């Protein structure tokens, strides 16, 4: 019968993309720490 896919730790009803906090195929937990981000060079004000 397969498994209840809502028990795999992914919020399938989320309005946000899941991949931004996808931790790993092995864990039910979203990724820890800061998701990947990069600030443009010009944000470095004097």
């Amino acid at each position, binding site marked *: *019968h*397969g*498994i*209840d*896919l809502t028990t*795999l*730790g*992914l919020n*399938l009803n*989320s309005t946000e*993309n*899941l*991949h*931004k*906090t*996808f931790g*790993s*195929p*092995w864990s039910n937990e979203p*990724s820890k720490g800061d*998701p*990947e981000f*990069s600030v*443009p*060079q010009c944000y470095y004000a004097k």
Partner: protein
Amino acid sequence: ETDPAGFRSRVTTLFKSWYQICEVSGANETACSQYVLHLHQTGLLKGDDTTESFFRILLELSVAHCISSEEISSGAVQSPQQAQSPSFLIIDIYAKLVFSILKHFPEQESSSKLFLLSEIMAVTVRSIQKDAEEKKSSLNPIPYFRLFINWLLDLCSLDPGTDGANFQVLTAFANAFHALQPLKIPAFSFAWLELVSHRSFMPKLLTVNGQKGWPYVQRLLVDLLQFLEPFLRNAELGGPVHFLYKGTLRVLLVLLHDFPEFLCDYHFTFCDVIPSSCIQMRNIILSSFPRNMRLPDPSTPNLKIDLLPEIVEAPCILSEVDAALKAKQMKNDVDEYLMSRQQSSSFLSELKQKLLLSASEASSAGTRYSVPLINSLVLYTGMQAIQQLQATQQLQAGETQAPNVVALQMFKYLSMELDTEGRYLFLNAIANQLRYPNNHTHYFSFIMLYLFFESDQEIIQEQITRVLLERLIVNRPHPWGLLITFIELIKNPRYGFWKQAFIRCAPEIEKIFESVARSCG
């Protein structure tokens, strides 16, 4: 062949000075770029054999340090539970060196940077393959995993000068991961899937440069599913396989949620490599539908499928549907038959034989039939029929008369002449097209119901019911087209479903039908 005398110690010395720059003086940009310039001026970055040796030795040094640090620390602790994690210091330093080389590479045109990156990737892949060959089941994948994680976080988020540069970095990784796929290095499988599905890699490959990265992700998913297929075929999954299977489900769910169009457009390819026993995994693929589409509730009373605007649209299919037919030199015969408009029996009677595998192929495929060939024949024929129907405007809303007779003739012949196993695979090929509202779902839903209605053998009706039902009694998700077909079958008195003896062949079967009937409203 061995490296030139003294070269290894030269590389070691260079690596030590890089370590000084990173660890001691905090790796400021100036020091990094001067170091890279020095490497360039001493001819180590030309992309020739020297370059290959240079990076291979650096990688060997880094991996050796990582592994020895783990052995030392785990030797020191009492119980394996406390096994300390290895030191990634040198691996991280090496990853940073590659990143700095690509960032500060003095040659301005990005082509030489990308050429150097592909060289470094090739060295890395060859080293892992060699290590795997030598170490077999004692391969330690973690140092290589850490190296790629560093590169995915740094190189894939390099400020893309142009999307093109970023895309070529991503495809360099995709090619490397393809070369390191589980069928080639099974001992690297878990590290491999985590890298391929990493949030800094897969989503970028699916979004940078439109859909140009989709074929790369599709190929990596096929690599994974081909490795799993022999294990999944006979549904008992031991620990490691079950763990890899669940990891695969998570990745497919992320794709279903964030990139459903990708799963939609490649469903045909994935159905070729997902074994027919993996019903829920296949349902995930078949349940995907374009994000901008709203699906009407299948159990809506008197739902008029034919009147849905999307129902006459052809779905986007990026897979090469007729590849298997061409490979077996059958495409021309099928085209001839479909154009012949007469029910030539020679073509049909030979058809059955052609769908069988040779004995040796059958033993490795775990079935006597070529599933990809059956899938290709069914979908290709259906697509030709739909095209002809639309050309003659027959497939109008509310049109119930039999569509394109010749194709129908073939489907009916196969449903009656194939043996039980062949018919099951044939009906599966049809059921794999029951997806979101489009003209394939519409046509193949009709075909499935037509075969049920026209068949004069109960075994055919039973198998059609089984193929639909086994896809419905698994945990969700269930494809929309599957639901509307089954609801039509059990609700429309035309098919006399509830008179069938097989729905009462056993008490638990009877209970299943009652509960399904209730849940289908």
